[in-house]
Protein backbone atom coordinates (compact mmCIF):
# COMPACT_ATOMS: atom_id res chain seq x y z
CA UNK A 1 0.00 0.00 0.00
CA UNK A 2 1.10 3.56 -0.65
CA UNK A 3 3.08 4.83 2.29
CA UNK A 4 2.60 8.59 1.98
CA UNK A 5 0.72 10.42 4.71
CA UNK A 6 -1.17 13.64 4.12
CA UNK A 7 1.51 15.47 6.07
CA UNK A 8 4.18 14.00 3.85
CA UNK A 9 2.30 15.05 0.69
CA UNK A 10 1.70 18.56 2.01
CA UNK A 11 5.43 18.98 2.39
CA UNK A 12 5.94 18.16 -1.30
CA UNK A 13 4.01 21.17 -2.60
CA UNK A 14 5.66 24.38 -1.49
CA UNK A 15 5.45 27.98 -2.60
CA UNK A 16 6.72 28.10 -6.18
CA UNK A 17 8.16 24.60 -6.15
CA UNK A 18 7.09 20.95 -6.05
CA UNK A 19 8.96 17.77 -5.31
CA UNK A 20 9.94 15.60 -8.28
CA UNK A 21 8.30 12.56 -6.70
CA UNK A 22 4.92 13.95 -7.71
CA UNK A 23 5.85 13.01 -11.28
CA UNK A 24 7.91 9.92 -10.56
CA UNK A 25 6.78 7.98 -7.48
CA UNK A 26 4.53 4.97 -8.30
CA UNK A 27 2.97 5.10 -4.82
CA UNK A 28 1.90 8.70 -5.31
CA UNK A 29 0.47 7.74 -8.70
CA UNK A 30 -1.67 5.07 -7.02
CA UNK A 31 -2.94 7.69 -4.58
CA UNK A 32 -3.80 9.98 -7.50
CA UNK A 33 -5.90 7.27 -9.13
CA UNK A 34 -7.78 6.85 -5.88
CA UNK A 35 -8.13 10.41 -4.61
CA UNK A 36 -8.23 12.40 -7.86
CA UNK A 37 -9.46 10.13 -10.66
CA UNK A 38 -11.60 8.19 -8.20
CA UNK A 39 -13.35 11.32 -6.89
CA UNK A 40 -13.22 14.32 -9.25
CA UNK A 41 -15.57 14.90 -12.17
CA UNK A 42 -13.83 13.16 -15.06
CA UNK A 43 -14.72 13.83 -18.71
CA UNK A 44 -15.73 10.57 -20.45
CA UNK A 45 -17.27 11.64 -23.76
CA UNK A 46 -19.90 13.62 -25.60
CA UNK A 47 -23.63 13.06 -25.96
CA UNK A 48 -23.36 13.03 -29.77
CA UNK A 49 -21.60 9.67 -29.36
CA UNK A 50 -24.74 8.19 -27.73
CA UNK A 51 -27.67 9.91 -29.43
CA UNK A 52 -30.25 7.11 -29.26
CA UNK A 53 -31.30 4.52 -26.67
CA UNK A 54 -28.97 1.55 -27.02
CA UNK A 55 -26.02 3.60 -28.34
CA UNK A 56 -22.87 3.03 -26.31
CA UNK A 57 -19.12 3.58 -26.31
CA UNK A 58 -16.35 2.28 -24.09
CA UNK A 59 -13.73 4.30 -22.27
CA UNK A 60 -11.96 4.16 -18.97
CA UNK A 61 -11.24 6.26 -15.94
CA UNK A 62 -7.92 5.37 -14.42
CA UNK A 63 -7.76 1.59 -14.76
CA UNK A 64 -11.52 1.09 -14.69
CA UNK A 65 -13.04 0.14 -18.04
CA UNK A 66 -16.41 1.86 -18.45
CA UNK A 67 -19.38 1.70 -20.81
CA UNK A 68 -21.21 4.96 -21.47
CA UNK A 69 -24.70 4.06 -22.68
CA UNK A 70 -28.06 5.68 -23.30
CA UNK A 71 -30.57 3.31 -21.69
CA UNK A 72 -34.01 2.33 -22.95
CA UNK A 73 -35.56 5.34 -21.22
CA UNK A 74 -33.06 7.73 -22.83
CA UNK A 75 -31.04 8.32 -19.64
CA UNK A 76 -27.24 8.34 -19.70
CA UNK A 77 -25.75 5.53 -17.65
CA UNK A 78 -22.12 4.69 -17.06
CA UNK A 79 -21.38 1.08 -16.14
CA UNK A 80 -18.26 -0.72 -15.09
CA UNK A 81 -17.45 -2.95 -18.05
CA UNK A 82 -17.29 -6.04 -15.89
CA UNK A 83 -19.55 -9.07 -15.50
CA UNK A 84 -21.00 -9.51 -12.00
CA UNK A 85 -20.41 -13.26 -12.29
CA UNK A 86 -16.71 -13.87 -12.85
CA UNK A 87 -15.46 -10.38 -13.65
CA UNK A 88 -14.93 -10.69 -17.37
CA UNK A 89 -15.01 -7.57 -19.51
CA UNK A 90 -18.47 -7.70 -21.09
CA UNK A 91 -18.32 -5.30 -24.05
CA UNK A 92 -15.36 -5.69 -26.38
CA UNK A 93 -16.23 -3.19 -29.13
CA UNK A 94 -15.19 0.45 -28.83
CA UNK A 95 -18.69 1.58 -29.69
CA UNK A 96 -21.98 0.31 -31.04
CA UNK A 97 -25.70 -0.11 -30.60
CA UNK A 98 -27.41 -2.89 -28.66
CA UNK A 99 -30.54 -3.86 -26.75
CA UNK A 100 -28.64 -5.63 -23.99
CA UNK A 101 -25.15 -6.50 -22.82
CA UNK A 102 -24.16 -10.15 -22.77
CA UNK A 103 -21.08 -11.75 -21.25
CA UNK A 104 -19.47 -14.26 -23.61
CA UNK A 105 -18.33 -16.53 -20.79
CA UNK A 106 -21.52 -17.97 -19.20
CA UNK A 107 -24.11 -15.86 -20.96
CA UNK A 108 -25.12 -13.53 -18.15
CA UNK A 109 -27.23 -10.90 -19.88
CA UNK A 110 -27.87 -7.36 -18.65
CA UNK A 111 -30.29 -4.54 -19.32
CA UNK A 112 -28.76 -1.32 -20.66
CA UNK A 113 -28.81 0.14 -17.16
CA UNK A 114 -26.77 -2.79 -15.85
CA UNK A 115 -29.54 -4.77 -14.11
CA UNK A 116 -29.36 -8.50 -14.68
CA UNK A 117 -31.88 -9.62 -17.30
CA UNK A 118 -31.31 -13.35 -17.69
CA UNK A 119 -28.93 -16.13 -16.71
CA UNK A 120 -28.65 -19.55 -18.37
CA UNK A 121 -28.90 -22.55 -16.02
CA UNK A 122 -30.25 -20.36 -13.24
CA UNK A 123 -31.24 -23.32 -11.05
CA UNK A 124 -27.57 -24.22 -10.57
CA UNK A 125 -26.80 -21.11 -8.53
CA UNK A 126 -27.23 -21.01 -4.73
CA UNK A 127 -30.75 -20.84 -3.36
CA UNK A 128 -30.50 -17.17 -2.44
CA UNK A 129 -29.52 -16.23 -6.01
CA UNK A 130 -31.74 -13.34 -7.02
CA UNK A 131 -31.45 -11.53 -10.35
CA UNK A 132 -33.05 -8.50 -8.67
CA UNK A 133 -30.23 -8.26 -6.12
CA UNK A 134 -27.93 -5.34 -7.03
CA UNK A 135 -24.92 -7.59 -6.51
CA UNK A 136 -25.87 -9.39 -9.71
CA UNK A 137 -25.85 -6.12 -11.70
CA UNK A 138 -23.07 -4.52 -13.65
CA UNK A 139 -22.04 -1.67 -11.38
CA UNK A 140 -23.18 1.83 -12.20
CA UNK A 141 -20.84 4.75 -11.63
CA UNK A 142 -22.54 6.72 -8.83
CA UNK A 143 -22.74 10.10 -10.52
CA UNK A 144 -23.13 10.98 -14.20
CA UNK A 145 -23.80 14.52 -15.37
CA UNK A 146 -23.49 16.41 -18.57
CA UNK A 147 -23.00 20.08 -19.26
CA UNK A 148 -24.17 21.15 -22.73
CA UNK A 149 -23.46 17.68 -24.09
CA UNK A 150 -20.10 17.06 -22.38
CA UNK A 151 -20.45 13.97 -20.19
CA UNK A 152 -18.57 13.67 -16.89
CA UNK A 153 -18.61 11.03 -14.17
CA UNK A 154 -17.69 11.12 -10.53
CA UNK A 155 -17.03 7.91 -8.64
CA UNK A 156 -17.72 9.70 -5.36
CA UNK A 157 -21.34 9.20 -4.26
CA UNK A 158 -21.55 12.80 -3.11
CA UNK A 159 -19.64 16.05 -3.35
CA UNK A 160 -19.87 19.20 -5.44
CA UNK A 161 -22.11 19.04 -8.50
CA UNK A 162 -20.52 19.08 -11.95
CA UNK A 163 -21.42 22.74 -12.45
CA UNK A 164 -20.08 23.69 -9.03
CA UNK A 165 -16.87 21.90 -9.85
CA UNK A 166 -16.54 23.52 -13.29
CA UNK A 167 -17.27 26.98 -11.94
CA UNK A 168 -16.33 29.71 -14.40
CA UNK A 169 -14.93 27.09 -16.83
CA UNK A 170 -18.49 26.47 -18.00
CA UNK A 171 -17.89 29.57 -20.14
CA UNK A 172 -15.17 27.75 -22.09
CA UNK A 173 -17.52 24.82 -22.73
CA UNK A 174 -20.16 27.36 -23.77
CA UNK A 175 -17.64 28.83 -26.22
CA UNK A 176 -17.12 25.37 -27.72
CA UNK A 177 -20.86 24.93 -28.37
CA UNK A 178 -21.96 28.52 -29.09
CA UNK A 179 -19.78 28.67 -32.20
CA UNK A 180 -22.16 26.22 -33.94
CA UNK A 181 -24.81 28.14 -35.93
CA UNK A 182 -27.38 25.47 -34.98
CA UNK A 183 -26.25 25.53 -31.36
CA UNK A 184 -25.06 21.93 -31.45
CA UNK A 185 -21.73 20.20 -31.97
CA UNK A 186 -20.90 16.55 -32.65
CA UNK A 187 -17.85 14.33 -32.38
CA UNK A 188 -16.62 13.48 -35.90
CA UNK A 189 -13.51 12.74 -37.91
CA UNK A 190 -11.91 9.89 -35.99
CA UNK A 191 -9.49 10.00 -33.11
CA UNK A 192 -5.76 10.31 -32.50
CA UNK A 193 -4.32 8.10 -29.81
CA UNK A 194 -0.80 8.76 -28.71
CA UNK A 195 1.40 7.72 -25.84
CA UNK A 196 4.52 8.86 -24.07
CA UNK A 197 6.71 7.62 -21.24
CA UNK A 198 5.99 10.40 -18.81
CA UNK A 199 3.53 11.53 -16.17
CA UNK A 200 -0.05 12.53 -17.06
CA UNK A 201 0.24 15.98 -15.46
CA UNK A 202 2.88 17.07 -17.97
CA UNK A 203 0.42 17.05 -20.84
CA UNK A 204 -2.13 19.25 -19.10
CA UNK A 205 0.56 21.65 -17.97
CA UNK A 206 2.07 22.01 -21.41
CA UNK A 207 -1.23 23.04 -23.00
CA UNK A 208 -1.23 26.30 -21.03
CA UNK A 209 2.51 26.91 -21.36
CA UNK A 210 3.13 30.07 -23.38
CA UNK A 211 6.87 30.01 -22.72
CA UNK A 212 7.74 26.80 -24.59
CA UNK A 213 6.59 27.08 -28.24
CA UNK A 214 9.27 29.55 -29.31
CA UNK A 215 11.93 27.13 -28.07
CA UNK A 216 10.53 23.59 -28.26
CA UNK A 217 8.89 24.06 -31.65
CA UNK A 218 11.81 25.87 -33.23
CA UNK A 219 12.34 23.21 -35.92
CA UNK A 220 8.80 23.56 -37.26
CA UNK A 221 8.80 27.36 -36.84
CA UNK A 222 11.95 27.68 -38.95
CA UNK A 223 10.76 25.17 -41.52
CA UNK A 224 7.39 26.92 -41.88
CA UNK A 225 8.87 30.41 -41.99
CA UNK A 226 11.19 29.36 -44.80
CA UNK A 227 8.40 27.65 -46.73
CA UNK A 228 7.50 29.23 -50.09
CA UNK A 229 3.83 30.05 -50.43
CA UNK A 230 3.47 29.58 -54.18
CA UNK A 231 3.57 25.80 -53.92
CA UNK A 232 0.69 23.42 -54.50
CA UNK A 233 -1.68 23.32 -51.53
CA UNK A 234 -5.17 21.91 -51.22
CA UNK A 235 -5.76 24.14 -48.19
CA UNK A 236 -4.37 21.64 -45.70
CA UNK A 237 -0.90 23.15 -45.75
CA UNK A 238 -2.22 26.70 -45.47
CA UNK A 239 -3.63 26.37 -41.97
CA UNK A 240 -0.83 24.17 -40.72
CA UNK A 241 1.94 26.44 -41.88
CA UNK A 242 0.22 29.53 -40.56
CA UNK A 243 -0.07 27.88 -37.15
CA UNK A 244 3.59 26.84 -37.06
CA UNK A 245 4.77 30.30 -38.07
CA UNK A 246 2.73 31.88 -35.30
CA UNK A 247 4.55 29.72 -32.73
CA UNK A 248 7.58 31.81 -33.67
CA UNK A 249 6.12 35.08 -32.41
CA UNK A 250 8.72 36.96 -30.32
CA UNK A 251 8.92 36.49 -26.57
CA UNK A 252 7.59 40.01 -26.00
CA UNK A 253 4.38 38.87 -27.67
CA UNK A 254 4.12 35.70 -25.60
CA UNK A 255 4.62 37.68 -22.40
CA UNK A 256 2.11 40.43 -22.98
CA UNK A 257 -0.46 39.47 -25.63
CA UNK A 258 -1.70 36.01 -24.71
CA UNK A 259 -3.13 35.86 -21.21
CA UNK A 260 -3.37 33.02 -18.69
CA UNK A 261 -6.33 32.60 -16.34
CA UNK A 262 -6.83 30.05 -13.55
CA UNK A 263 -9.86 29.01 -11.51
CA UNK A 264 -10.63 26.85 -8.48
CA UNK A 265 -10.32 23.05 -8.75
CA UNK A 266 -7.26 23.19 -11.00
CA UNK A 267 -8.87 24.62 -14.14
CA UNK A 268 -7.25 27.18 -16.42
CA UNK A 269 -7.21 28.60 -19.91
CA UNK A 270 -4.66 30.20 -22.18
CA UNK A 271 -5.69 33.17 -24.31
CA UNK A 272 -5.62 33.25 -28.09
CA UNK A 273 -2.05 33.73 -29.18
CA UNK A 274 -2.55 34.81 -32.74
CA UNK A 275 -1.67 38.38 -33.47
CA UNK A 276 -4.71 38.86 -35.61
CA UNK A 277 -8.35 38.79 -34.63
CA UNK A 278 -8.89 35.13 -35.36
CA UNK A 279 -6.84 32.46 -37.06
CA UNK A 280 -9.58 31.58 -39.54
CA UNK A 281 -10.95 35.07 -40.05
CA UNK A 282 -7.53 36.42 -40.75
CA UNK A 283 -7.15 34.05 -43.65
CA UNK A 284 -9.61 36.31 -45.41
CA UNK A 285 -11.30 33.16 -46.56
CA UNK A 286 -14.73 33.52 -48.20
CA UNK A 287 -15.61 30.45 -46.17
CA UNK A 288 -15.45 32.43 -42.97
CA UNK A 289 -17.82 35.03 -44.37
CA UNK A 290 -20.27 32.20 -45.13
CA UNK A 291 -19.85 30.96 -41.59
CA UNK A 292 -20.54 34.37 -40.08
CA UNK A 293 -23.61 34.71 -42.32
CA UNK A 294 -24.88 31.33 -41.05
CA UNK A 295 -24.25 32.43 -37.46
CA UNK A 296 -26.01 35.76 -37.92
CA UNK A 297 -28.99 34.11 -39.60
CA UNK A 298 -29.48 31.87 -36.57
CA UNK A 299 -28.29 34.03 -33.68
CA UNK A 300 -28.45 37.62 -34.88
CA UNK A 301 -25.63 40.09 -35.45
CA UNK A 302 -25.05 41.13 -31.85
CA UNK A 303 -24.98 37.65 -30.41
CA UNK A 304 -22.68 36.44 -33.20
CA UNK A 305 -20.26 39.27 -32.52
CA UNK A 306 -20.35 38.49 -28.81
CA UNK A 307 -19.64 34.79 -29.44
CA UNK A 308 -16.77 35.36 -31.85
CA UNK A 309 -15.14 37.92 -29.58
CA UNK A 310 -14.30 35.22 -27.05
CA UNK A 311 -10.57 34.64 -27.47
CA UNK A 312 -9.47 31.44 -25.81
CA UNK A 313 -6.88 28.95 -26.91
CA UNK A 314 -6.59 25.82 -24.74
CA UNK A 315 -8.99 25.39 -21.83
CA UNK A 316 -8.01 22.81 -19.22
CA UNK A 317 -10.60 21.14 -17.02
CA UNK A 318 -8.62 19.40 -14.31
CA UNK A 319 -7.65 16.59 -14.23
CA UNK A 320 -8.19 14.98 -17.65
CA UNK A 321 -9.62 17.35 -20.26
CA UNK A 322 -8.19 20.03 -22.51
CA UNK A 323 -10.08 21.55 -25.42
CA UNK A 324 -9.79 24.34 -27.91
CA UNK A 325 -12.93 26.04 -29.10
CA UNK A 326 -11.51 27.95 -32.07
CA UNK A 327 -10.71 24.79 -34.01
CA UNK A 328 -13.03 22.39 -32.17
CA UNK A 329 -10.32 20.13 -30.75
CA UNK A 330 -10.61 18.11 -27.54
CA UNK A 331 -8.03 15.94 -25.78
CA UNK A 332 -8.68 13.39 -23.05
CA UNK A 333 -5.75 12.41 -20.86
CA UNK A 334 -5.53 8.84 -19.57
CA UNK A 335 -2.99 8.10 -16.85
CA UNK A 336 -1.64 4.57 -17.37
CA UNK A 337 1.30 4.51 -14.95
CA UNK A 338 3.38 7.11 -13.18
CA UNK A 339 5.61 7.26 -16.27
CA UNK A 340 3.12 6.27 -18.96
CA UNK A 341 0.26 8.32 -20.41
CA UNK A 342 -2.16 7.90 -23.29
CA UNK A 343 -3.98 10.82 -24.88
CA UNK A 344 -7.04 10.62 -27.13
CA UNK A 345 -7.79 13.61 -29.32
CA UNK A 346 -11.15 14.27 -30.95
CA UNK A 347 -12.57 16.78 -33.41
CA UNK A 348 -16.04 18.31 -33.31
CA UNK A 349 -18.24 19.41 -36.19
CA UNK A 350 -20.16 22.68 -35.81
CA UNK A 351 -23.72 21.96 -36.86
CA UNK A 352 -24.99 24.47 -39.37
CA UNK A 353 -21.51 25.67 -40.38
CA UNK A 354 -20.16 25.30 -43.94
CA UNK A 355 -18.69 21.81 -44.53
CA UNK A 356 -15.30 23.25 -45.30
CA UNK A 357 -15.05 24.51 -41.70
CA UNK A 358 -14.78 20.92 -40.61
CA UNK A 359 -12.06 20.29 -43.16
CA UNK A 360 -10.10 23.08 -41.48
CA UNK A 361 -10.72 21.41 -38.13
CA UNK A 362 -9.21 18.19 -39.53
CA UNK A 363 -6.20 20.00 -41.02
CA UNK A 364 -5.57 21.77 -37.76
CA UNK A 365 -5.85 18.50 -35.80
CA UNK A 366 -3.34 16.83 -38.09
CA UNK A 367 -0.71 19.46 -37.56
CA UNK A 368 -1.21 20.38 -33.91
CA UNK A 369 -2.52 17.20 -32.30
CA UNK A 370 -1.52 14.52 -34.80
CA UNK A 371 0.66 11.60 -33.84
CA UNK A 372 2.82 12.38 -36.88
CA UNK A 373 2.50 16.16 -36.71
CA UNK A 374 5.40 18.55 -37.04
CA UNK A 375 4.51 20.16 -33.70
CA UNK A 376 3.20 17.59 -31.22
CA UNK A 377 6.13 15.24 -31.82
CA UNK A 378 8.46 17.74 -30.17
CA UNK A 379 6.09 18.04 -27.18
CA UNK A 380 6.10 14.25 -26.84
CA UNK A 381 9.90 14.35 -26.88
CA UNK A 382 9.81 16.85 -24.00
CA UNK A 383 7.51 14.60 -21.95
CA UNK A 384 9.86 11.67 -22.55
CA UNK A 385 12.87 13.69 -21.50
CA UNK A 386 11.14 14.96 -18.35
CA UNK A 387 10.20 11.37 -17.58
CA UNK A 388 13.83 10.33 -18.00
CA UNK A 389 15.14 13.27 -16.00
CA UNK A 390 12.80 12.96 -13.05
CA UNK A 391 13.15 9.22 -12.70
CA UNK A 392 16.53 9.68 -11.06
CA UNK A 393 17.59 11.39 -7.88
CA UNK A 394 19.38 14.67 -8.24
CA UNK A 395 17.54 17.95 -8.36
CA UNK A 396 14.80 17.11 -5.88
CA UNK A 397 12.67 20.22 -6.41
CA UNK A 398 11.10 21.54 -9.59
CA UNK A 399 10.70 25.28 -10.00
CA UNK A 400 7.22 26.47 -10.87
CA UNK A 401 7.72 30.07 -9.79
CA UNK A 402 7.47 32.12 -13.00
CA UNK A 403 5.11 35.02 -12.35
CA UNK A 404 4.83 34.09 -8.68
CA UNK A 405 5.11 37.65 -7.41
CA UNK A 406 3.10 39.39 -10.11
CA UNK A 407 -0.02 37.20 -10.50
CA UNK A 408 -3.26 38.97 -9.70
CA UNK A 409 -6.92 38.24 -8.96
CA UNK A 410 -9.36 37.96 -11.85
CA UNK A 411 -12.93 39.26 -11.92
CA UNK A 412 -14.54 35.79 -11.84
CA UNK A 413 -13.07 34.36 -8.67
CA UNK A 414 -9.82 33.12 -10.13
CA UNK A 415 -6.29 34.38 -10.57
CA UNK A 416 -4.49 35.40 -13.72
CA UNK A 417 -0.91 35.93 -14.72
CA UNK A 418 0.11 39.52 -15.18
CA UNK A 419 2.69 38.02 -17.49
CA UNK A 420 1.21 35.44 -19.89
CA UNK A 421 4.15 33.11 -19.36
CA UNK A 422 3.42 32.89 -15.64
CA UNK A 423 3.42 29.32 -14.33
CA UNK A 424 0.34 30.15 -12.30
CA UNK A 425 -1.59 27.38 -14.09
CA UNK A 426 0.81 24.76 -12.68
CA UNK A 427 0.62 26.17 -9.17
CA UNK A 428 -3.15 26.26 -9.48
CA UNK A 429 -3.24 22.60 -10.51
CA UNK A 430 -1.09 21.62 -7.55
CA UNK A 431 -3.38 23.47 -5.15
CA UNK A 432 -6.25 21.35 -6.49
CA UNK A 433 -3.99 18.30 -6.32
CA UNK A 434 -3.31 18.91 -2.64
CA UNK A 435 -6.97 19.41 -1.85
CA UNK A 436 -7.94 16.14 -3.57
CA UNK A 437 -5.01 14.25 -2.08
CA UNK A 438 -5.04 15.58 1.49
CA UNK A 439 -8.24 17.56 2.00
CA UNK A 440 -6.17 20.68 2.71
CA UNK A 441 -7.98 23.66 1.16
CA UNK A 442 -5.05 26.08 1.33
CA UNK A 443 -3.36 27.40 -1.80
CA UNK A 444 0.02 26.29 -0.63
CA UNK A 445 1.85 26.54 -3.92
CA UNK A 446 0.75 30.16 -4.26
CA UNK A 447 1.18 31.39 -0.71
CA UNK A 448 3.63 34.21 -0.69
CA UNK A 449 7.14 33.49 0.33
CA UNK A 450 6.86 35.26 3.67
CA UNK A 451 4.05 32.95 4.70
CA UNK A 452 6.34 30.08 3.99
CA UNK A 453 6.34 26.49 4.90
CA UNK A 454 7.63 25.40 8.25
Amino acid at each position, binding site marked *: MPRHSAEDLLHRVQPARVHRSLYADPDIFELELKHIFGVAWIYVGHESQVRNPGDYFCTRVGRKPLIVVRDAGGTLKVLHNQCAHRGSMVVASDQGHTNEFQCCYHGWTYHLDGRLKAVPLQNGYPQDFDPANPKTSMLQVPRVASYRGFIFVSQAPDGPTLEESLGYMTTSLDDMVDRAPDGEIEVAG*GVFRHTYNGNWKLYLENLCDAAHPWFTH*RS*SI*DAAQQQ*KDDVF*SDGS*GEIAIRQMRQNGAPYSFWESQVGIWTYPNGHSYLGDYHDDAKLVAAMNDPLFRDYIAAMEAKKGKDRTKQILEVRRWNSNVYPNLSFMSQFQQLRVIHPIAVDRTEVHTYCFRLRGAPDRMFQNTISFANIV*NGTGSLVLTDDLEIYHRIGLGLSSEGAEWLEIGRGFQSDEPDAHGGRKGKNSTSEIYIRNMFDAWLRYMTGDPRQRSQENLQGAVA
Partner: protein
Amino acid sequence: MSAAIESHVVLAPAAADPGWSLEQCETFLLHEARLLDEAKFDAWLALFTADAQYWVPSEPDQQSPYDTVSLMYDDRRLLETRVRRLASPRIYSQEPRSRTSRIVTNVTVDESGPDGALVRSKFMMIEFRRGVQRLFGGTCFHRLVRQDGSIRIRLKRIDLVNCDAPLDGLVVPF
Protein backbone atom coordinates in the same frame (compact mmCIF):
# COMPACT_ATOMS: atom_id res chain seq x y z
CA MET B 1 -9.21 22.29 -54.08
CA SER B 2 -7.32 19.43 -55.59
CA ALA B 3 -8.93 16.39 -57.05
CA ALA B 4 -10.08 14.03 -54.36
CA ILE B 5 -7.61 11.42 -53.23
CA GLU B 6 -8.21 8.35 -55.28
CA SER B 7 -9.49 5.26 -53.61
CA HIS B 8 -6.89 2.53 -53.29
CA VAL B 9 -9.44 -0.14 -54.09
CA VAL B 10 -8.95 -1.53 -57.58
CA LEU B 11 -11.66 -3.88 -58.74
CA ALA B 12 -10.04 -5.27 -61.85
CA PRO B 13 -6.55 -4.83 -63.22
CA ALA B 14 -6.63 -2.60 -66.25
CA ALA B 15 -4.86 -3.70 -69.39
CA ALA B 16 -1.20 -3.53 -68.57
CA ASP B 17 0.71 -0.68 -70.18
CA PRO B 18 4.06 -2.00 -71.37
CA GLY B 19 5.56 1.33 -70.32
CA TRP B 20 5.18 0.30 -66.68
CA SER B 21 6.94 -2.98 -66.06
CA LEU B 22 6.89 -4.63 -62.67
CA GLU B 23 10.68 -4.62 -62.58
CA GLN B 24 10.84 -0.91 -63.29
CA CYS B 25 8.32 -0.08 -60.57
CA GLU B 26 9.99 -2.33 -58.04
CA THR B 27 13.39 -0.82 -58.74
CA PHE B 28 11.91 2.64 -58.16
CA LEU B 29 10.33 1.61 -54.84
CA LEU B 30 13.60 0.09 -53.62
CA HIS B 31 15.43 3.27 -54.60
CA GLU B 32 12.91 5.33 -52.64
CA ALA B 33 13.24 3.09 -49.56
CA ARG B 34 17.00 3.37 -49.70
CA LEU B 35 16.89 7.17 -49.80
CA LEU B 36 14.68 7.13 -46.69
CA ASP B 37 16.90 4.66 -44.83
CA GLU B 38 19.93 6.78 -45.65
CA ALA B 39 18.09 9.93 -44.46
CA LYS B 40 18.51 11.59 -47.85
CA PHE B 41 15.21 13.38 -47.42
CA ASP B 42 15.82 16.13 -49.98
CA ALA B 43 16.49 13.51 -52.62
CA TRP B 44 13.37 11.68 -51.45
CA LEU B 45 11.29 14.84 -51.78
CA ALA B 46 12.61 15.28 -55.32
CA LEU B 47 10.86 12.03 -56.25
CA PHE B 48 7.46 13.70 -55.76
CA THR B 49 5.52 15.73 -58.31
CA ALA B 50 4.78 19.43 -57.79
CA ASP B 51 1.17 18.58 -56.87
CA ALA B 52 2.03 15.54 -54.74
CA GLN B 53 0.10 14.25 -51.75
CA TYR B 54 1.56 12.09 -49.00
CA TRP B 55 -0.86 10.26 -46.77
CA VAL B 56 -0.75 7.97 -43.71
CA PRO B 57 -4.41 7.37 -42.72
CA SER B 58 -5.45 6.96 -39.08
CA GLU B 59 -8.14 4.39 -39.86
CA PRO B 60 -8.20 1.17 -41.90
CA ASP B 61 -9.93 1.78 -45.26
CA GLN B 62 -10.08 5.52 -44.61
CA GLN B 63 -11.80 7.11 -47.58
CA SER B 64 -10.62 10.70 -47.37
CA PRO B 65 -7.98 12.84 -45.66
CA TYR B 66 -10.43 15.75 -45.55
CA ASP B 67 -13.14 14.44 -43.22
CA THR B 68 -11.08 12.21 -40.92
CA VAL B 69 -7.79 12.86 -39.14
CA SER B 70 -4.60 11.28 -40.51
CA LEU B 71 -1.35 10.27 -38.85
CA MET B 72 0.22 12.32 -41.62
CA TYR B 73 -1.44 14.09 -44.49
CA ASP B 74 0.68 16.53 -46.47
CA ASP B 75 -0.04 18.46 -49.61
CA ARG B 76 3.11 19.42 -51.48
CA ARG B 77 3.55 22.57 -49.42
CA LEU B 78 3.40 20.76 -46.12
CA LEU B 79 5.58 17.90 -47.36
CA GLU B 80 8.31 20.41 -48.19
CA THR B 81 7.99 21.85 -44.67
CA ARG B 82 8.13 18.36 -43.15
CA VAL B 83 11.32 17.55 -45.03
CA ARG B 84 12.92 20.91 -44.21
CA ARG B 85 12.20 20.36 -40.52
CA LEU B 86 13.94 16.97 -40.66
CA ALA B 87 17.14 18.82 -41.55
CA SER B 88 16.85 21.27 -38.66
CA PRO B 89 19.58 21.04 -36.01
CA ARG B 90 16.84 21.80 -33.48
CA ILE B 91 14.44 19.00 -34.26
CA TYR B 92 14.51 17.68 -30.71
CA SER B 93 12.38 14.65 -31.53
CA GLN B 94 15.25 13.51 -33.77
CA GLU B 95 18.02 14.09 -31.26
CA PRO B 96 19.43 11.47 -31.42
CA ARG B 97 18.41 10.56 -34.96
CA SER B 98 16.36 7.48 -35.72
CA ARG B 99 17.99 4.71 -37.67
CA THR B 100 15.64 2.81 -39.96
CA SER B 101 15.70 -0.30 -42.08
CA ARG B 102 12.96 -0.93 -44.63
CA ILE B 103 11.95 -4.02 -46.52
CA VAL B 104 9.72 -3.56 -49.57
CA THR B 105 8.11 -6.61 -51.11
CA ASN B 106 4.97 -8.14 -52.75
CA VAL B 107 5.08 -5.44 -55.41
CA THR B 108 2.27 -5.49 -57.98
CA VAL B 109 1.25 -3.05 -60.67
CA ASP B 110 -2.48 -2.80 -60.07
CA GLU B 111 -3.24 -0.32 -62.82
CA SER B 112 -1.22 1.16 -65.61
CA GLY B 113 -1.86 3.36 -68.57
CA PRO B 114 -0.48 6.33 -70.43
CA ASP B 115 -1.22 8.56 -67.42
CA GLY B 116 0.65 6.51 -64.88
CA ALA B 117 0.57 3.42 -62.72
CA LEU B 118 -0.85 2.43 -59.38
CA VAL B 119 1.66 0.23 -57.58
CA ARG B 120 0.88 -1.77 -54.48
CA SER B 121 3.53 -3.10 -52.11
CA LYS B 122 4.02 -4.43 -48.60
CA PHE B 123 6.62 -2.90 -46.34
CA MET B 124 8.20 -3.38 -42.95
CA MET B 125 10.25 -0.73 -41.24
CA ILE B 126 12.36 -1.11 -38.14
CA GLU B 127 13.05 2.16 -36.37
CA PHE B 128 15.65 2.40 -33.62
CA ARG B 129 16.08 5.50 -31.48
CA ARG B 130 17.44 6.07 -27.97
CA GLY B 131 17.32 2.44 -26.92
CA VAL B 132 13.86 1.70 -28.31
CA GLN B 133 13.17 -0.38 -31.39
CA ARG B 134 9.79 -0.12 -33.09
CA LEU B 135 8.38 -2.23 -35.90
CA PHE B 136 5.95 -0.83 -38.45
CA GLY B 137 4.36 -2.66 -41.32
CA GLY B 138 1.59 -2.33 -43.81
CA THR B 139 0.57 -1.71 -47.38
CA CYS B 140 1.80 1.10 -49.62
CA PHE B 141 0.11 2.52 -52.68
CA HIS B 142 2.16 4.61 -55.06
CA ARG B 143 0.47 6.56 -57.84
CA LEU B 144 3.40 6.94 -60.20
CA VAL B 145 3.70 9.19 -63.22
CA ARG B 146 6.46 9.91 -65.68
CA GLN B 147 7.81 13.43 -65.98
CA ASP B 148 10.70 14.39 -68.28
CA GLY B 149 11.59 10.74 -68.60
CA SER B 150 11.76 10.08 -64.84
CA ILE B 151 9.32 8.30 -62.57
CA ARG B 152 7.69 10.60 -60.02
CA ILE B 153 5.29 10.00 -57.12
CA ARG B 154 1.96 11.76 -57.47
CA LEU B 155 0.46 10.12 -54.39
CA LYS B 156 1.88 7.90 -51.70
CA ARG B 157 -0.53 6.26 -49.32
CA ILE B 158 0.74 4.13 -46.41
CA ASP B 159 -1.79 1.96 -44.57
CA LEU B 160 -0.14 0.89 -41.31
CA VAL B 161 -1.41 -2.38 -39.85
CA ASN B 162 -1.69 -0.60 -36.48
CA CYS B 163 -2.79 2.81 -37.74
CA ASP B 164 -5.43 3.12 -35.00
CA ALA B 165 -3.24 1.93 -32.12
CA PRO B 166 -1.92 4.31 -29.44
CA LEU B 167 1.46 5.30 -30.86
CA ASP B 168 4.39 7.37 -29.75
CA GLY B 169 5.28 10.21 -32.10
CA LEU B 170 5.97 9.51 -35.77
CA VAL B 171 8.73 11.69 -37.16
CA VAL B 172 10.59 9.75 -39.85
CA PRO B 173 8.43 9.42 -42.98
CA PHE B 174 7.38 5.94 -44.09
